């Protein structure tokens, strides 16, 4: 098994790991559960992007996308958490 086949297999495993939290985003009883699912999907997408970059041989381009995506994921989750905390009331 050469390296490229291995990376394709890892990308397949990550695609499965990315598909599972969508169930929680769809069904989750509270808003916080949906946000948790979205945050998990974001951090799996970071790894998937880096692996796609290695497979395409353009990691120097994809690593900037990885940086931007990790920043956006963090800022988005914290912003929604602060908003939900300030809004209070029902969840």
């Amino acid at each position: 098994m050469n390296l490229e086949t291995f990376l394709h297999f890892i990308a397949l495993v990550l695609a499965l790991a990315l598909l599972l939290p969508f169930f929680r985003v769809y069904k989750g009883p509270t808003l916080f559960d949906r946000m948790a699912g979205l945050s998990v999907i974001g951090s799996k997408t970071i790894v998937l992007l880096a692996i796609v970059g290695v497979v395409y041989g353009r990691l120097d381009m994809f690593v900037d996308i990885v940086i931007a995506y990790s920043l956006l994921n963090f800022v988005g989750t914290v912003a929604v958490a602060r908003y939900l905390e300030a809004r209070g009331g029902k969840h």
Partner: protein
Amino acid sequence: MTEILAVLFISIGSLFLLLGSIGIIRFPDFYARTHAMSKPDTMGLMLTLTGLALLNGWNLTSLKLLLVVLFVAMATSTSTHALGRAALKTGLKPWFKGEDRK
């Protein structure tokens, strides 16, 4: 040798990520799910990106990947804590053994 180490890191890291995904659909309530949200994700992402940096060799791209690892190690736990704190402040009740699963 470096390649074997990188393959080992990437395999273990993706296993962590898969287990975190399973945890987030299997755990009974939100406070238990924050556990599956932060720890396996941080560990898996650190291992996987370090493995990819090892595959890439010593250059600027690897340095950027390691900076992402350093950032995510702080950021994932912070955002998880912010969500958990918001849930506690707005009065979401924890689940106890014996109650119905939500």
